[in-house]
C-alpha cells in the first residue's frame, strides 16, 4: 500500500534504508550531523555520517578517493552551484578515472544537490546547472519530480557503480506524493509518462513537470490532450520514450527552468531533430527561462521563469503551426 511522503522525506528514507542495507554507504556534507542527536548520526555513527567544512573540492575529491577504496559516499551539497567551485571533480575526475585506468577502478559516488530555488535567492543560488554535466561520458544525472521518483532514483543512485549527480528541486521539497512499498527502485534511463495525451507532447523535468501537469489540466478543459513526459534522468537520457510520444502526437513542447542554451530542453530538441524529425508535424517549441540571470525581485523573477501560462501558450502555438512544407 503506497505511503504518502514529502519529497525530502522520500530521499531521506532512501538514504537511511540504503545505509542500513550496505555498510559501505557513507553520508557527509556541510551543516549536517552537527550533534549526536542528528538522526543519521544516531543510526550510523560518526564514522559514516560526518560534517564537513566549506571545502567542496576536498569533499568531492575525498568521496571519489573513498569510492575507489570501496565506500559508496553520498555528499550533501545543498545547492548545486556549490559544485562549481569544485567542478573539475564532478566532470573531469569522477567520470574519467575509471576510463583512464582501463576499467580498473570504479567511482560509486552520489553528489546530492538542491537547485532552482526560485524564491528570491537571486543570481548565484537559483540556477539550473545540469546542462553543464550532460554529455559527460561516465556521469549519470538524476532529476526527480515526484516523491516516488525521488526515492527510487536515490536508491538506484546509491547502488549504481558510476558517479551520479542527484538533483533535488527545492521547490518540490515539501510536496507530498505516494511512494510504493518495499524497496522501490527507479532505473536510470527510463522516462516516465506522467500524463497520457494525444495532441501534443510536453517534455519537462523536476518542478517544470508540476507546472506542465497544471498546464495540461488547463488545456484539457479546452479540449487539448497533452502528454507529459518526464525523462527523470538526463544521463542516460531516454530519447526513445520521448520520440515514441512524438510519434503519437506529432508535436513537441519542451519546458525547462534554465535559459535556452543552458537547458536540457535544447539537447532533447536537438535529438528529436535528428531522430524524430519525420514524426514532427510542427516546429518544436521551447519554454525556458529568458536569457538573464535570475533577478531577486519577485515580479522580475516571475517574468523570467517559465510559467503555466507560458506552457499553455506554447502548446497552442505548436498546435496552430502548419506542418513543414516539404
Amino acid at each position, binding site marked *: 500500500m503506497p505511503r504518502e511522503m514529502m519529497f525530502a522525506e522520500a530521499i531521506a528514507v532512501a538514504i537511511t534504508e540504503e545505509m542500513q542495507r550496505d555498510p559501505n554507504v557513507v553520508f557527509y556534507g556541510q551543516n549536517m550531523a552537527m550533534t549526536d542527536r542528528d538522526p543519521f548520526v544516531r543510526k550510523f555513527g560518526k564514522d559514516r555520517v560526518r560534517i564537513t567544512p*566549506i571545502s567542496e573540492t576536498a569533499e568531492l575529491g575525498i568521496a571519489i578517493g573513498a569510492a575507489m577504496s570501496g565506500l559508496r559516499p553520498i555528499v550533501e551539497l545543498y545547492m548545486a552551484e556549490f559544485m562549481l567551485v569544485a567542478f573539475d571533480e564532478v566532470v573531469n575526475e569522477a567520470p574519467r578515472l575509471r576510463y583512464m585506468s582501463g576499467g580498473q577502478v570504479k567511482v560509486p559516488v552520489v553528489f546530492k544537490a538542491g537547485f532552482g530555488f526560485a524564491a528570491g535567492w*537571486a543570481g548565484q543560488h537559483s540556477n539550473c546547472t545540469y546542462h553543464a554535466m550532460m554529455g559527460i561520458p561516465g556521469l549519470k544525472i538524476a532529476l526527480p519530480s515526484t516523491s516516488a521518483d525521488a526515492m527510487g532514483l536515490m536508491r538506484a543512485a546509491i547502488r549504481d557503480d558510476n558517479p551520479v549527480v542527484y538533483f533535488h528541486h527545492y521547490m518540490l521539497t515539501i510536496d507530498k506524493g505516494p511512494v510504493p512499498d518495499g524497496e522501490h527502485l527507479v532505473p536510470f534511463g527510463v522516462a516516465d509518462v506522467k500524463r497520457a495525451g494525444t495532441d501534443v507532447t510536453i517534455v519537462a523535468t523536476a518542478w517544470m513537470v508540476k507546472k506542465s501537469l497544471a498546464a495540461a489540466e488547463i488545456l484539457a478543459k479546452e479540449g487539448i490532450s497533452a502528454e507529459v513526459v518526464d525523462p527523470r534522468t538526463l544521463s542516460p537520457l531516454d530519447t526513445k520514450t520521448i520520440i515514441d510520444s512524438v510519434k503519437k502526437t506529432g508535436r513537441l513542447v519542451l519546458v525547462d527552468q534554465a535559459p535556452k542554451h543552458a537547458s536540457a530542453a535544447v539537447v532533447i530538441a536537438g535529438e528529436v531533430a535528428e531522430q524524430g524529425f519525420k514524426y514532427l508535424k510542427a516546429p518544436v517549441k521551447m519554454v525556458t527561462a529568458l536569457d538573464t540571470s535570475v533577478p531577486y525581485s519577485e515580479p522580475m523573477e516571475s517574468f523570467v521563469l517559465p510559467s503555466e501560462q507560458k506552457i499553455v501558450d506554447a502548446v497552442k502555438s505548436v498546435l496552430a503551426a502548419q506542418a513543414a512544407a516539404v
Partner: protein
Amino acid sequence: MAATSKDLSKDKLIWMYTQMLRIREFEERVKRTFVEHPGVIRGHAHLGDGAEASIVGALATRNETDLVMPSYRCHGYPLVLGTPARALMAEIYQRKDGICKGFGGSMHLADPAHHFPTASGIIGQGIAHAAGAAYAAQVKKTGQIVYSFFGDGSSKQGAFHETLNLAAVWKLPVVFILENNQYQAYTHISLEDANAIAGEPLSQKAKAYSIPGVTVDGTDVRKVYDEVGKAAERARAGQGPTLIESQFYRLSPHGNAITVPPVPTQFQEHESIEVYGRKDEFAAAKKNDGIVKFRELLIGNGTLTEADAKRIEEGVRNEMEDVVKFALASPLPKGEDALNYVWA
C-alpha cells in the same frame, strides 16, 4: 607609524559609535520585517549584529577612496561607507529604488560609487575579487588599498588559500579580515577548523603565506582600529597583505529560516541554542556586546554624556524608521525590467 585609537578625535569616536548603532538598528529592522511585513524580504538574508565593532573599527582606518569587499553578509559595510540606508533597505525589500534596483537583494549588495564594488554569495570567491581590486590599485598606482572581509568558515575554501599566497607574492595592497564569529552557518568552528580544534588562533594561517597574522578582539572597536590600522599602513607602504582574525560573535542566527514558499520564513533562535543547546555561550556573547562596551567607555571617559548617547540612539532609530517607510513605499520593479543589465 599608523595612527592609533588613542589619537581618535571626539568627532570620530562619536561617528564610530553612531555607525555601530546604525548597523545594529538597520539589522533589527531587517529582522522585524520578517514579522511585521512577511513576504517583503525573499530568499536568504544575513545580519551583521555582533560585528559592529569589527566593521566600524576596521573601516574607520580607511582613506577616502579605499575599497571594501565584504562577503554575502554585507548590510553593515555600505552603511558605514555612506550608501543611503534607504537604498539598502529598498534593495532588501525588492524595490525599484534599491541600490541594485531589485536585481541583487540582501546577499548581493553593491555600491561602487561608495567604494563597495560587489559582494559574492559564493563562499570565498569575494576574497579573490578583493585581491583583484588591489591589483588594479597597484597597477594604476591609485594609492587605494582594499579591505577584504570574509568569515571563519570561508577560510576553509580554496579561494582563500590561493588568493593569500598570490597577494603575498605580488605584495598587493589588501587587508584580509577574517571575521571569526565562531559559526559557519549552523556549524561551530570546533567542528571544522584544524587550528581551532588545536586551540590555536586562525591568524596562524598567515604563516602559510609568510605574511603577518594577528588575532584581535573584534568586540573592541579600538583594538580593531589599531590592528587594522597597522595592516592598512603596511599595505599603503607597499609591504603587502596582512591577515587579521577579528573574533566576535554573531548575535542573530545565520539567516532567516530556509523554507519553501508559501511557508513563511523568519529568524529563529540562535544556533548555539537551537542546535547545540548552549544557552550560556549565547548569554555570555550577549553580555559582551561591543556596542554596549563602547557606549560605557565613551560615557566613562567623558566623550559622551548619557543624554548625548540617548540623542544619538534616538536619531538612529528615527533614521531607520524612515528607512523602512521609504523602502515599503518604493515601487516594485516591472517584470520586463529583468531584461536590463545582462550585457554591458
